[in-house]
């Protein structure tokens, strides 16, 4: 009997510890534990100059400009609330287009321009044939970007 009670006490203590652990993790996730920052995060946080990080969002419609050297590209990354201008020199992934998800890696310069030295395309979870996409857009049921 006594041993049984002791065992029960241990199980309870263990459960309490696990519960505390879960509570800690949950409250930690309210703050940011992210792979990349959104433009809103950048606006809210003081990110020091010269620090390398990643910024992710959608390429703003109509913002993509190719400079004369044919290699440098400038565009704006937006999360539809805030926006960050990005300049990048190098090859772009095939899926890079206006209105698509993108993650740029680099540093924020003094002028507020994000100078990227790597760009990854981030696509969303929608898959469909081109005709369907067209039809959706025509019928105005298009929910994704663009």
């Amino acid at each position, binding site marked *: 009997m006594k041993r049984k009670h002791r065992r029960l006490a*241990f199980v309870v*203590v*263990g459960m309490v*510890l*696990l519960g*505390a*652990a*879960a*509570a*800690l*993790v949950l*409250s*930690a*996730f309210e*703050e*940011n*534990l992210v792979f990349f920052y959104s433009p809103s995060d950048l606006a809210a*946080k*003081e*990110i*020091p100059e010269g*620090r390398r*990080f990643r910024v992710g969002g959608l390429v703003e419609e109509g913002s993509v400009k190719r400079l004369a050297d044919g290699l440098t590209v400038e565009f704006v990354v937006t999360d539809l609330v805030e926006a960050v201008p990005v300049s990048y020199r190098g090859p772009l992934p095939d899926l890079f287009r206006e209105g698509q998800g993108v993650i740029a890696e680099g540093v924020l310069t003094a002028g507020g321009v994000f100078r990227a030295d790597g760009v990854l395309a981030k696509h969303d979870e929608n898959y469909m044939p081109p005709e369907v996409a067209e039809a959706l857009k025509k019928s105005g049921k298009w929910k994704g970007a663009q």
Partner: protein
Amino acid sequence: MSAFWCIVRRDLRLALRRGGDSVNVMVFFVIAITLFPFGVGPESNILARIAPGVIWVAALLAAMLSLDRLFRDDYDDGSLELLTLAPLALEFTVLAKCLAHWLTTGLLLAAASPLLALMMNMDADGFAALLAAMLLGTPVLSLVGAIGAALTVSLRRGGVLISLLVLPLFIPVLIFGVGAVAAAVYGLAARPHLMVLGAMLLAALPLCPWAAAAALRLSVE
């Protein structure tokens, strides 16, 4: 519970008697870190950039190396099977051994880490976070590592196998440990990372001794 402290005391005394042992872990830690300037080149900004990662990886490897001995000596000389017969529940025996292990390794690694960060040119803003993260993270390494040590104790070739088993489980500690330091260096909040490390510790405290004890029972069979 006096049996618990009996084991802690014995393990601490053995560690002290053996003298160099925890010193050796420390020295491995220091040497592994000093290999990097040789390997990567002495450019201080690159070193500073990779410092938190290198320090944590070295701590992981040092902890892992010392783990092989956590139960092995007791297994080899037959003490372990007697410990499984003792009136103290094996889970607490494991906990006691982990505590002694942490006091003689993890604690020292944590204490030494700011110094090594200095050597690696790390930004001084990160020192406090590094120390805090190490203090929270190294006990997790001892506890999680105990599972791997218990699983491999009856195998002659445990030493390398243990790394295969526990290093993957160490990776979350590494990620959040480095995250805390990096955040502090860049002037962001280290707290969420430290909280996750704390949560890991709380979860490891009941779970790991339980799993390790099960593994030990199997090993002495």
